[in-house]
C-alpha cells in the first residue's frame, strides 16, 4: 500500500448541526438562499428560447436522419435567465471575496479585459480567414509574445498551448525534439516530490519515465540528490520556481548549470510566476522552457475551471522546435503566420502541431489588455504586493498556525501552514470548511504533499489590507478552535448552500448524467429538514 486518504473524512448522514432550528418554508427557499432544480426538471416539451425560421428545404436524400430530436427539454429566455442566475448564486467567486487558493493565483479579473475580448474584430473572426483579413489578430499574438519573451528574458514563445498542463507538454516535446535532433535518446525526467501532479503526468504523457527528487528540510530541491541522478539518460528536470511551498529556489542557477553540464534541459513550471513577474527573468536563471498560465499571472478569468492558456517561453536552444502555427514579424514589421505550408522554409525543425488552430485568442486579448494596463512598472508592483500580502498573512498567523518553513525566512507569494498543533481529531479539512462559514473560500489544502495537512494561502496582490485583516481574523479564530478541539468544526460548513457532500457515494456508484429519475430516495426536502 502506498498512499493514505489525506482527508480521511466522511460525513455523518443525518447530522444536522447548526441551522436545525430553521423554520420550514413552503417553497423550500429561504429568503435569498434559493434552491434550483435541474433544467431538465423545469423544461417543457416544445418550449424554446430561440425564434427560428421555417426550414426552406426538405433533407437531401441519403442522409442518416435522426429518428427523434435529442431528448432535451428547452426553456424560454426568462426561464433560462432565471435558472442560471439562481444557480450562479450558489457559487463563491473572486468577485465576492478573497479566494486564497495557493498556486492558483485567483486575482481580480479586470472588466476592461472582458470588454476588449468582445470587440467584434476579435470575437467574430474565423481562424481560417485569409491572412490579409486577420492582421490585427496576428498583431495581438505578436505583441503579447514580445511582452512574454521580454518579461522572461527568453528567446521565443510558443503561443498555441491551451492551458498550463498543455504548455508543460509543449515544453517537454521541445526538449524531446532537441534531444532527438542531437541523435540521442534520453528517457528520464526528474521531478521534485513537491511538484504539482501535472508535472509527472505530463512527463509520462510525453513518453518519459519519471524519477523523483527529494526536498530538503527547508522545503527546497535537494541539489546534491539532484546531481546524483543526472546522467546520459536524463532529458531534463521540471522545477517549479517559486516552488509549491511558496519558496524561491535559491540554487536555481546551480541546478540549471548542473543539468546543462549533463546534457539535459531545464523545464520551469511557471504557475507561480506572479511572485516574480518584473522582478526576475527566468532566462537569467538558465531556464530552457517555462509555461505561463495567462489565467493566473495575467488575470484571464478562471471561469469555474477554464478556459486557460499556457504559452511556453523557450530558450535559444529550444526555440527551433516550437510547434505550429507560429506568428512571426518580418524585418519590415509585417506580421506573418507560419503554418505547415511554409514551415519547411521558415521553421523546419518544428515538432509539429498540438492544437487545431492558433491557441486561446480570447485569452490573448485579455492578457494583453492586462499587461498594457500595468506596464513594466505595474507588473513589478504586482509581484511586490503579492509577496508582501503573503508575508503579511504568514507573520500575522504563524503564532497560532504552524508554518514549517517560516523560520528560514520570508515566503514568496504564498504562505504554507501545517496541521501541527491541532487537537486530536481536528484536521485541515475542518479549518477549510470553517472558513466557508466565515464567508471565505478556503485555501489550497493537502497540497503540497511534503507537509502534513498542508494549507497553502495565496492572497494575491488584489486584496486590500482591510480585506486581508478580515481574513486573518477568521483564520486565527479557526486555528484557535482547531487547537482547542472545537468539535463543531467537524460539521462545518453550516451556512453554505450545501453541507458536506458524500464523495464516497458519488465515487462508488457514479451518477454522471441525469436519467430522468426523481431525486435519490430518502432525500428529504429542505422543509422536512427544518422539521427535524
Amino acid at each position, binding site marked *: 500500500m502506498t498512499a493514505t486518504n489525506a482527508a480521511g473524512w466522511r460525513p455523518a448522514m443525518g447530522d444536522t448541526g447548526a441551522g436545525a432550528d430553521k423554520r420550514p418554508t413552503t417553497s423550500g427557499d429561504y429568503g435569498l438562499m434559493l434552491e434550483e432544480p435541474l433544467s431538465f426538471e423545469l423544461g417543457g416539451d416544445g418550449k424554446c428560447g430561440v425564434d427560428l425560421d421555417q426550414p426552406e428545404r426538405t433533407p437531401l436524400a441519403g442522409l442518416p436522419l435522426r429518428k427523434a430530436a435529442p431528448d432535451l427539454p428547452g426553456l424560454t429566455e426568462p426561464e433560462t435567465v432565471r435558472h442560471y442566475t439562481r444557480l450562479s448564486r450558489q457559487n463563491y467567486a473572486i468577485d465576492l471575496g478573497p479566494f486564497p487558493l495557493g498556486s492558483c493565483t*485567483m486575482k481580480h479579473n479586470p472588466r476592461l479585459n472582458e470588454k476588449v475580448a468582445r470587440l467584434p474584430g476579435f470575437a467574430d473572426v474565423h481562424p481560417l480567414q485569409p491572412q490579409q483579413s486577420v492582421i490585427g489578430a496576428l498583431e495581438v499574438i505578436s505583441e503579447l509574445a514580445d511582452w512574454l519573451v521580454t518579461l522572461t528574458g527568453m528567446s521565443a514563445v510558443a503561443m498555441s498551448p491551451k492551458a498550463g498542463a498543455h504548455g508543460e507538454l509543449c515544453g517537454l516535446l521541445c526538449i524531446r525534439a532537441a534531444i532527438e535532433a542531437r541523435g540521442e535518446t534520453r528517457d528520464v525526467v526528474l521531478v521534485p516530490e513537491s511538484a504539482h501532479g501535472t508535472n509527472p503526468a505530463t512527463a509520462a504523457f510525453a513518453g518519459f519515465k519519471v524519477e523523483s527528487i527529494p526536498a530538503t528540510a527547508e522545503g527546497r530541491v535537494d541539489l546534491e540528490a539532484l546531481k546524483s541522478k543526472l546522467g546520459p539518460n536524463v532529458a531534463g528536470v521540471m522545477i517549479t520556481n517559486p516552488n509549491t511551498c511558496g519558496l524561491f529556489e535559491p540554487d536555481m542557477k546551480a541546478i540549471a548549470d548542473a543539468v546543462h553540464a549533463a546534457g539535459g534541459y531545464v523545464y520551469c513550471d511557471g504557475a507561480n510566476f506572479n511572485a516574480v513577474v518584473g522582478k526576475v527573468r527566468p532566462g537569467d536563471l538558465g531556464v530552457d522552457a517555462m509555461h505561463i498560465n495567462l489565467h493566473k499571472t495575467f488575470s484571464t478569468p478562471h471561469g469555474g475551471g477554464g478556459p486557460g492558456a499556457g504559452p511556453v517561453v523557450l530558450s535559444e536552444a529550444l526555440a527551433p522546435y516550437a510547434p505550429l502555427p507560429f506568428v512571426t514579424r518580418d524585418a519590415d514589421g509585417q506580421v506573418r503566420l507560419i503554418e505547415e505550408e511554409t514551415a519547411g522554409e521558415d521553421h523546419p525543425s518544428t515538432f509539429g502541431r498540438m492544437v487545431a488552430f492558433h491557441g486561446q485568442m480570447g485569452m490573448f486579448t485579455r492578457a494583453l489588455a492586462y499587461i498594457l494596463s500595468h506596464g513594466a512598472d505595474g507588473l513589478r508592483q504586482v509581484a511586490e504586493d503579492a509577496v508582501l500580502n503573503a508575508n503579511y498573512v504568514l507573520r500575522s498567523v504563524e503564532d497560532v498556525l504552524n508554518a514549517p518553513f517560516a523560520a528560514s525566512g520570508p515566503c514568496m507569494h504564498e504562505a504554507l501552514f501545517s496541521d501541527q498543533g491541532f487537537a486530536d481529531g481536528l484536521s485541515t479539512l475542518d479549518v477549510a470548511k470553517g472558513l466557508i462559514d466565515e464567508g471565505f473560500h478556503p485555501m489550497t489544502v493537502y497540497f503540497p504533499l511534503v507537509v502534513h495537512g498542508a494549507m497553502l494561502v495565496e492572497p494575491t496582490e488584489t486584496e486590500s489590507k482591510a480585506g486581508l485583516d478580515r481574513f486573518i481574523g477568521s483564520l486565527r479564530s479557526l486555528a484557535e478552535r482547531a487547537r482547542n478541539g472545537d468539535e463543531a468544526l467537524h460539521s462545518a460548513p453550516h451556512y453554505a448552500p450545501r453541507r458536506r457532500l458524500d464523495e464516497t457515494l458519488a465515487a462508488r456508484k457514479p451518477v454522471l448524467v441525469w436519467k430522468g429519475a426523481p431525486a435519490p430516495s430518502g432525500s428529504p426536502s429542505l422543509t422536512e429538514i427544518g422539521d427535524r
Partner: protein
Amino acid sequence: MRYLPLTDTDRADMLGVIGAASVDDLFVDVPKEARLSGAIEGLPLHASELAVERHMARLAAKNLTAGNAPFFLGAGAYRHHIPASVDHLIQRGEFLTAYTPYQPEIAQGTLQVLFEFQTQVARLFGTDIANASMYDGSTACWEAILMAARVTSRGRAVLSGGLHPHYAQVVKTLAKFTRDKIDARLPELTAVPDDAAVISAIDGETSCVVVQYPDILGRIPDLAAIAEAAHAKGALLIAVVTEPVALGLIEAPGHLGADIVVGEGQSLGVGLQFGGPYLGLFGCREKFVRQMPGRLCGETVDAEGQRGFVLTLSTREQHIRREKATSNICTNSGLCALAFSIHMTLLGGEGLARLAQVNHGRAQVLVERLTKVPGVSCLNTSYFNEATLLLPSDAREVVRALAERGVLGGVSLGRLFPGVDGLANGLLVTATETVTDEDIETFATELAGVLA
C-alpha cells in the same frame, strides 16, 4: 494603479508587522545578480483604461470581422447566432470568477451546470456518459485515441481520410512521441467517403478507427458499417463531430455504434474568436468510465440528505495519480461548457432539430446558387451545412481574391492540405442560419467575377 488596492501607508504598516525594512528584503532568496533593479527597460509603463481600450480597438479594426462580410467559412469552426442571454449569463461574476469546484459546498452552481452539460452532451452524442469538457475538438480526439489504447491494450489507430487535417496533425505529432502507430490517409475527391478503404485498414492490432461525421469535405460516412467492422476485429469506433448542430438532423454517432464520441462544441454558445478558447466534447460507453480523461461531475447527497454534486472519480486524474493518470489535463473549458449548456437549454432538443433544418436548407440554397456559376460544381451528393465545391483553378487564390472583394468565401482545401495538388481546386463552403439570401447572391456574383 487602478487594480492594486494597497496604499504606501498600508505597505509601510505591513512591512512593520513582517519585520522587514523593505519589500526587497522579502526577495532575499533570489540571488542578487538575478534581481532586476527597476522596471524592465524598453517596455511601456502603465496605461489608463481609455488608452488600453483605444489601442486594442485599433488592432481589432485591422481585422475583417465575419459579421461585416458575406461569410461562408467552416472547417471545424462555425458562425452561429448566439442568443444575447448566453453572453450575459456567462459574465455573471459567480460563474466567470469562480475556480474549479474543489469546495463543492460553495460551488453547486458550477457543479450543477457541469452535470447538466454532461447530460446534454451524452444525449446529443447518443453516448451513455460524457465528461465535463476538454480543451478543444483536436485535443479531445487525441485523448480518445489514448483511451482506446488503454481499453483495448493495443496501439494502432486508423484515421479516416475525412478527419480534419489539423486534428490528424495533432494526432501524428503526439503519436511520434508516445510511439503509438497511426495509419492515416488523405481524403479522396469522391461524392461519398471511401468507407471501404477505412474498413480494410482495420486489423487485429487496431485499437480504434477515427471517423469524422460529417467529414472534412462535408460528406456523411456510414458509421454503422464502420462500427460493425471495427467491433468484429476488437477495435473501437471513435466518431469525431466538429459541427454539433448537425446532430439535430442526422443520427447520433452513439446510436450508430460509436464507442467514443468526441467533438468541438464551439458551434453552440461560443464565438469564433480566431480559434479559441473552444470546447472539447467527450462522450463514451459507461463501461469505459474509469479510463476516461478529464473531470467528471457526479450526483450525490450532502450530510442532510439533500441532492448535490461533486467532482468525482478523481483518482484517474493527475493531481492524485500523477504519472499514472489517464491524462495530464487540469484546467479545461468550464466557461465555454457553460455557454454551450445555456445555448442548448434555450434551444431544447426540438429547437436544435429546427436549427439544424434551417442550416441544412441554407446550405442547399447556397450550393444550388454557386453551382450555377460557370465552371463550379459540387463534389457532394449529401451534406449537412457544409459542402465541397470544385473550382476550375487553385482555390487558395480564389479565396484571397474574394477577400479583396469583401467576401469571406470559404476555406480552400489547399490551406488545409498544403502540397496535395489533387485537392488544390477544392473549396469548402458553409452556410448557417446567419447567411442571408443577399450574402449568397453577392458571393455568387463575386465568385463569377474572380473566375472570369
